[in-house]
């Protein structure tokens, strides 16, 4: 019943509607687009290097004759997958750790707070950049794990503080008196009651992860060639963006539109799920 109300609210929100439509179109472009284009992302056209957009190569070609359209869509697929995986992992981790810390208190809580403070002191970009040379040649899933491992801390702090108040609610106390084990209380009674926060957070984490991935790949710390992501493409394109604008414009434009639509959707979700808040 509540989900219906929330969904109706979401549909009425103009921002969220545009965001959702744009997002569906982008995902469709990323996954259906490659079948429509004339070239595969691994193809190299040795007759046209750095050619501007034309009827044959819709978005132009790169220095080594790759079709920009195919490569960019491939990069976007990767960025979307990374964004989704990182958001899921990070929010899940944040929910679990935050709820456990808030529920148990004591030293669990202290350790968590120290972790969050440390993250605040050392930007996660710095830590991932330091560790990343080790990942050269490893699977990109490691990169996802690393990104997720350094995104969850701040949300977990919010989850913790909300758990502190949920812990005193009657239904949680009732569960305690019924003798239900504590981990089960956390999973069954506390985390589901944080779902609106978690859904909002997961959505916004998607865009944060997409930007984070692109930022690290920009310096060569993320996705390694021959694989591509929007970050590696932007890095490549920004080097000679004045001379060959199509190398930069398409990946950068798609990245911005992707992040923007996810943010719009996330903001709309916040309004729909949590009408009281205004941040």
């Amino acid at each position, binding site marked *: 019943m509540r989900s219906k109300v929330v969904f109706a609210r979401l549909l009425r929100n103009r921002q969220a509607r545009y965001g959702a439509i744009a997002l569906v179109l982008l995902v469709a472009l990323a996954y259906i687009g490659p079948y429509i284009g004339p070239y595969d992302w691994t193809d190299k056209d040795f007759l046209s290097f750095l050619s501007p957009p034309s009827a044959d190569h819709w978005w132009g070609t790169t220095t080594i004759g790759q079709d920009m359209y195919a490569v960019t869509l491939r990069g976007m697929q990767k960025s979307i997958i990374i964004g989704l995986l990182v958001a899921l992992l990070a929010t899940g981790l944040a929910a679990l750790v935050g709820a456990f810390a808030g529920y148990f208190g004591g030293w669990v809580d202290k350790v968590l707070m120290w972790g969050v*403070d*440390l993250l*605040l*002191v*050392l*930007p996660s*970009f*710095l*830590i991932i*950049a*330091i*560790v*990343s*040379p*080790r990942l050269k040649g490893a699977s990109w899933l490691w990169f996802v794990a690393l990104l997720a491992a350094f995104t969850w801390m*701040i949300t977990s702090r919010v989850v913790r503080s909300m758990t502190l108040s949920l812990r005193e609610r009657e239904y949680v106390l009732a569960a305690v008196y019924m003798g239900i084990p504590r981990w089960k209380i956390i999973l069954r009674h506390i985390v589901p009651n944080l779902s609106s926060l978690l859904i909002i957070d997961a959505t916004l984490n998607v*865009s944060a992860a997409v*930007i984070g991935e*692109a*930022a690290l790949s*920009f*310096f*060569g*710390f993320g996705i390694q060639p021959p694989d591509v992501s929007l970050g590696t493409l*932007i*890095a490549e394109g*920004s080097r000679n*963006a*004045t001379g060959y*604008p199509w190398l*930069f414009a398409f990946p*950068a434009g798609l*990245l*911005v539109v992707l*992040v*923007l639509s996810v*943010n*719009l959707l996330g*903001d709309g979700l916040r309004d729909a799920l949590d009408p009281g808040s*205004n*941040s």
Partner: protein
Amino acid sequence: MGKYLLRRLAVNVILVAVAASLAYMLAATTMNPRAAYEGRQPPVAEAVVDATLDAYNLNDKTPVLQRYATWVSGVVTGDFGKTWNGGSVNDEMGRRIMVSLRLLLVGTLVGFALGVALGAYSAVKQYRFADRSIGVSSFVVMAIPVFVLATLLAIGTYNLNRGLGFTLIEYTGEYNPRLSGWDQLLNRLNHLILPTISLSLGSIAFYSRIQRSMMLDVLNQDFVRTAMAKGLRRRTALLKHALRTALIPAATYFAFAFGTMLTGATFTEKIFAWHGMGAWLIDSIQQNDVNAVAAVSFFSAVCVLAAAFLSDLLVAALDPRVRVS
């Protein structure tokens, strides 16, 4: 109050130590300074490599903890060790630190001041055209990562300069070393324009959104109405009573936003060819330069905690309740 701030300061010093140690450990265990000597022709004898690496405290054959102990004993006396090719980290840091600090300081001030001003203004003009356009543009700006923004600015300026037929805004490097005196200063300011925009635009958007919602909260409260009712001018009531109260949350976000600012500075420095700490981080990671990475981490930890301390001071100055308790 003084006691509280002192305690915060002590905690901050401990946090810097832990953070820097963590960064050193990470760097020392993941990086391979030996790589610089491998694959040379003629090959360097292993004993020679070992001796050189030992002299720089970079030898991966020495246990990490022992290297860490050597590093710490240096850092305590203010010596950050040697770079991968034997230069002094301190000298290099001395050259670069002001470059970064200037960029960060200007970027932070511009970002905070303009962001707060825009946010407050758009709250006062809620639902008017100004509010909507500020809201939409800050939303768009927040979706543009720094490296895209910096590149866009560079392209725009390139075209502007070409359109004008002369160089209005320069953006490569920090200054033109051939100039001197006033010309030099003007030239430095000119070079500062684009990096400042690229660094502060994101935080302007960030602060304006926070400030708008906080200001809206405050505007509906009784004390603002009272201030107006007792005959204060609207401007005074808004600035002295509403804005001051609404500033407190933005001031607490200050510490948090500074980490993002540091990351942004790394991109800005790299893209606009400034030789600051951020650019050094990227270079030293690529060169397996453990001590330099540790030094940059130390620097960023100190910066973030200084920002946190500053934000504590700011909150204490704005909020009498904090001062009393």
